[in-house]
């Protein structure tokens, strides 16, 4: 917010700096000029006409002085409600009314009128001026009240925002701690894992004469799994550390099958079926495979969680690839709860989450990863239920 905007929100400050009747700020203190003209004239005219009617009515009761007394009323009221201008208009109208029929006909000789007219003008002007000052004070007060209530509201909003930021900060801090712990863990684990790998390779050599094929395959399995663990640790370390993203031409189907392998047991235990629509042979795209696995994994995790509630609906995740415009389209579609219209625009915001345990970082990170790859991520409702996430990646790296 610019400083000027800030000041614009405080009419009372404008009033103080511009002075009453100033050109810019004062428009907020008193109604616009047009409105004053209309209302003040209207009020003055109507009140004088009413006074005329009233004076004609009660004249038989009060005698000759009735008009004078009654006509003070519209002047006072006009000045009180609409200030100097209305007061003057009412005064003039009241005076004019004195000289035209039927008042003139019913009233006193002309010499006595002059005295009354003079009194009219004096009283009218005095009341009008008093009314003007009263009015300006009232406006100031009202403006000050408005300012106070709006700044109270602002204060409340600011407090709320501060609380939200505090919560977010706590999350970041937890994430950071987690990251540090993971770094330590990765470091500690990498040593024993490489030892396992080396030992198992050694055992493989020692068992060169072994006849039982099961023993050989088991030992090979150990080294393969140790290798996989080492790779995972390596990718974890590089993911945590702020490394440069390493893009290589990779098969997009391999990314998906890696994710499916990692999530296999979870998908089975939750009775979620997978429908594949992968183009064969796989499209090759320049990607950082580890990051892309994280992105696809995150989409799958969201899908799994969105389908964890209702057991009546068929639980299905469709994953497919397709060529589109010098790039690859990747689709992950579920039959979960779906994303409401209101949440739709916010799902990529950091810290936006609908889960109790979620950090609200998954899609935010995914989006930044995809954008780093010059790609796009978006979603559409899956009908009748669920959400479809789409990712588009260029097949040639943009330099």
């Amino acid at each position, binding site marked *: 917010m610019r400083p000027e905007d800030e000041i614009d929100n405080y009419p009372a400050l404008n009033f103080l700096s511009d002075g009453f009747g100033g050109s810019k700020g004062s428009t907020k203190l008193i109604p616009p000029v047009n409105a004053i003209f209309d209302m003040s004239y209207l009020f003055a005219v109507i009140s004088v006409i009413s006074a005329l009617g009233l004076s004609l009515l009660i004249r038989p009761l009060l005698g000759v002085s009735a008009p004078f007394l009654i006509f003070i009323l519209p002047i006072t009221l006009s000045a009180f409600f609409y200030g100097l201008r209305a007061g003057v208009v009412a005064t003039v109208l009241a005076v004019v009314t004195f000289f035209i029929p039927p008042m003139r006909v019913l009233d006193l000789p002309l010499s006595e009128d002059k005295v009354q007219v003079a009194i009219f003008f004096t009283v009218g002007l005095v009341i009008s001026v008093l009314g003007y000052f009263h009015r300006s004070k009232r406006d100031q007060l009202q403006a000050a009240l408005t300012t106070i209530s709006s700044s109270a509201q602002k204060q409340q909003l600011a407090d709320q925002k501060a609380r939200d930021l505090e919560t977010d900060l706590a999350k970041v801090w937890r994430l950071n701690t987690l990251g540090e712990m993971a770094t330590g863990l990765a470091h500690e684990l990498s040593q024993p894992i490489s030892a396992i790998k080396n030992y198992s390779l050694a055992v493989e050599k020692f068992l060169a004469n072994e006849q039982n094929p099961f023993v050989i395959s088991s030992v090979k399995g150990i080294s393969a799994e140790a290798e996989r663990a080492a790779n995972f640790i390596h990718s974890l370390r590089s993911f945590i550390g702020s490394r440069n993203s390493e893009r290589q031409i990779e098969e997009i189907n391999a990314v998906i099958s890696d994710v499916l392998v990692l999530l296999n047991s979870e998908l089975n235990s939750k009775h979620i079926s997978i429908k594949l*629509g992968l*183009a064969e042979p796989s499209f090759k795209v320049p990607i950082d495979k580890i990051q892309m696995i994280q992105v696809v994994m995150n989409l799958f995790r969201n899908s799994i969680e969105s389908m964890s509630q209702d057991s009546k609906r068929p639980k299905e995740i*469709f994953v*497919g690839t*397709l060529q589109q415009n010098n790039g690859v389209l990747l689709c992950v*579609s579920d039959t979960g709860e779906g994303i409401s219209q209101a949440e739709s625009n916010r799902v990529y915001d950091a810290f936006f989450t609908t889960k109790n345990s979620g950090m609200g970082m998954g899609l935010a990170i995914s989006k930044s990863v995809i954008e780093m790859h010059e790609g796009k991520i978006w979603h559409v409702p899956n009908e009748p239920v669920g959400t*479809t996430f789409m990712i588009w990646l260029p097949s040639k790296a943009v330099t």
Partner: protein
Amino acid sequence: MLETKSILVIEDDHDIRVAIRQSLEDCGYYVHSVSNGWDGLTLLERIAAPSLIILDLSMPIMNGEEFLKLKVLNQKIVDIPVLVTSCHENRLSALADYPTMKKPIDMEVFLKKVASCIKV
């Protein structure tokens, strides 16, 4: 002999899909049919461009609107005419650029519309 025109039907409701397919085949068209927008895009990658696409809107995985958005971006299929069918009137009226057909489909009117779409 006249060249057989092919039509791609993208419709998730099995009964409607079969009915449309049958009527079109009776009129001498060659018909491909799939059950959602994603499968439609996949098939369009593999087959020669059809003369017309008949598209439903409310479909799983990829709905009709999303299909149209992606079709417009794809140079290979952008020029294929599309006849959009749906029972959601508001969704049809939002697609001003395409000829539309409100469901339930009156087959006679539908076939006339198909013929006119292909001619254009």
